[in-house]
């Protein structure tokens, strides 16, 4: 990865020197070895701090939302999942392609700095033996799907075995069992909205959960308001979630958000597919649920 770090730095330095970009998004090291954090370089000098290592797990495409109304030209490093986030932003008209210089990196799988820090912290009884980011175990697209330059060797998908296995287990439950399962899981959500904030597909300017006139969802952190929150959040992801897994990774109380997302990914694929969001960018393409077709299936309604 040192090799890739150097390549990224060379590219970023050159882009600054040729005045092709105003900012470059990558990672820098923080205090601990496992602490890589998003970094926003704004000059050729700052490029020196950039790193890319096994803890560069964050989906930086989400950080582009911060600059969507600006004019800055931005260089950005993306892994496979993050590149699908870029497609999300382009399809949603949140960014224009000409403002971006995309450095794609074929991803060998990442470790999770949050897991590593939890192990160190003394806030948990048992340590996580493996630091692999859970999201990487379900990854179907480790190689970037959109880029100006591609680094590293192409990688095989990391997902092993049957796709949607966990979803199928839940589908096999009776409605009562399923309700009890989600009641148990969702009752402990603290409604910190980190799952929303970390998500590149959550790009509405005013989120329904922040509306106060009227207020659509109650603010009590109890089972019923939490369920309402999760049903709405998940359904707004239908056909849009690019499976980067950031929502579940950042959740401080380990709510299995990807289960809900994957159920919807599976349904969209079987009803309107074959389809996986953000796998390729075609200008003007109309992905499922962004248009109405007379023959759209509706027996699930």
């Amino acid at each position, binding site marked *: 990865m040192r090799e890739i770090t150097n390549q990224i730095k060379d590219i970023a330095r050159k882009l600054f020197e040729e005045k092709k970009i105003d900012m470059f998004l990558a990672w820098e090291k923080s205090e601990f070895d496992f602490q890589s954090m998003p970094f926003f370089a704004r000059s050729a000098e700052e490029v020196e701090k950039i790193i890319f290592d096994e803890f560069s797990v964050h989906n930086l495409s989400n950080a582009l939302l911060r600059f969507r109304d600006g004019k800055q030209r931005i260089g950005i490093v993306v892994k496979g999942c993050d590149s699908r986030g870029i497609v999300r932003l382009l399809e949603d008209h949140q960014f224009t392609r000409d403002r971006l210089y995309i450095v794609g990196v074929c991803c060998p799988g990442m470790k999770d700095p949050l897991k590593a820090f939890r192990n160190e912290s003394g806030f948990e009884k048992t340590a996580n033996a493996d630091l692999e980011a859970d999201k990487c175990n379900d990854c179907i697209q480790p190689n970037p799907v959109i880029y100006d330059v591609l680094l590293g060797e192409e990688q095989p998908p990391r997902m092993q075995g049957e796709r949607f296995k966990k979803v199928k287990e839940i589908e096999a439950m009776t409605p009562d069992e399923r309700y009890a399962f989600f009641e148990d899981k969702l009752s402990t959500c603290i409604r910190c909205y980190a799952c929303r904030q970390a998500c590149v597909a959550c790009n509405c300017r005013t989120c329904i959960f922040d509306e106060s006139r009227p207020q659509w969802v109650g603010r009590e952190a109890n089972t019923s308001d939490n369920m309402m929150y999760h049903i709405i959040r998940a359904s707004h992801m239908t056909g849009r979630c690019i499976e980067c897994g950031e929502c579940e990774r950042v959740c*401080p109380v380990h709510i299995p958000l990807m289960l809900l997302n994957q159920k919807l990914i599976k349904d969209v694929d079987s009803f309107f597919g074959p389809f996986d969001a953000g796998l390729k960018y075609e200008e003007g393409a109309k992905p499922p649920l962004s248009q109405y077709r007379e023959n759209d299936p509706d027996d699930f309604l």
Partner: protein
Amino acid sequence: MKVMKKAKVEKVIEALAKEHDVYVPIQRGAQTGFFSYRTYNEDYDDIMLDTLNVYQPPKSIVFPQTEKMYGFKSEGQKINIDQVFEESEPKIIFGLRSCDLKAIDYLDELFFTKSYEDEFYRARRKSTVMIVNACYNPGTSCFCDSMGVSPNEPENADVLIHDIGEGDFAWEAKSDKGEAVTELIKDLLEEQEATLPTLKNFKRKVDYEGVAEKLKDMFDHPMWEDMSYPCHNCGICTYMCPTCYCFDIQVKTAGEEGYRFRCWDSCMYREYSQMAGGHNPRELDKERFRNRFLHKLQFFQERYGEPLCTGCGRCIVVCPAGVSIIKVIEKVKEADV
């Protein structure tokens, strides 16, 4: 010295639980926090008196995330308040750490002083006994002593217990409330010689001296924008913090009836500072980011004489973007103004 032997720990908790709702640090599945002993399930839960701390701080016991205040019913033009939900059942927080006790001291300052006393908080707080587990082994993210907290000799504990090895704890009553609960379990304690451990060195230090003063001139400093870039403006750091206390008051109605409740809120959210006329004084992410640190490091210090951070380290561990309050304090110290 009185000692609670390892084999007696659960018996002590059980005995206390007869007349109190006892909250214990527990690993429950993937989560750790203070949970009521009434919900303790041997197959599922693991009591954590031997670990450093738990993620979810005990503040929710005296200041719940969602708390009903009063219920009402409307009859024609009239509205009658027919219920007030004050909660004063006797409670014990068993095994909290000094940083989290100090955080509750700050809640006391907030809710009891400066000419306003909050009845809902008072009802819960006055009926709660604090059994504090003294810290001798600060963790990788701890910096409480830098923030003016003593890890092993906290003020305001009702009972102080000390891990003396082998799972045994020395037991010291420190207040009248503490004497009273000690009386309830005195037969379960043994009298024996015990040497208290020595406090190990902190791996983390930060120099807070002069920070509040310096921040007065740093409202428009460019560092806020730089530092706020990685931040998601989620509320993890504020909801997991033992001291953050901002709340909102809202109402829920169904037909003619309803209730008012308060619920935690976070300065990280845009909605938090949204005003009725449509103006938002903290529209930008960086302004909300800045507010979190100014409140902790400057405003609270100015009003109450102490910073609103006890150095528990939770926000640093759980932040998905790697934001660290220690780094912020260091940046303030280094900044040119």
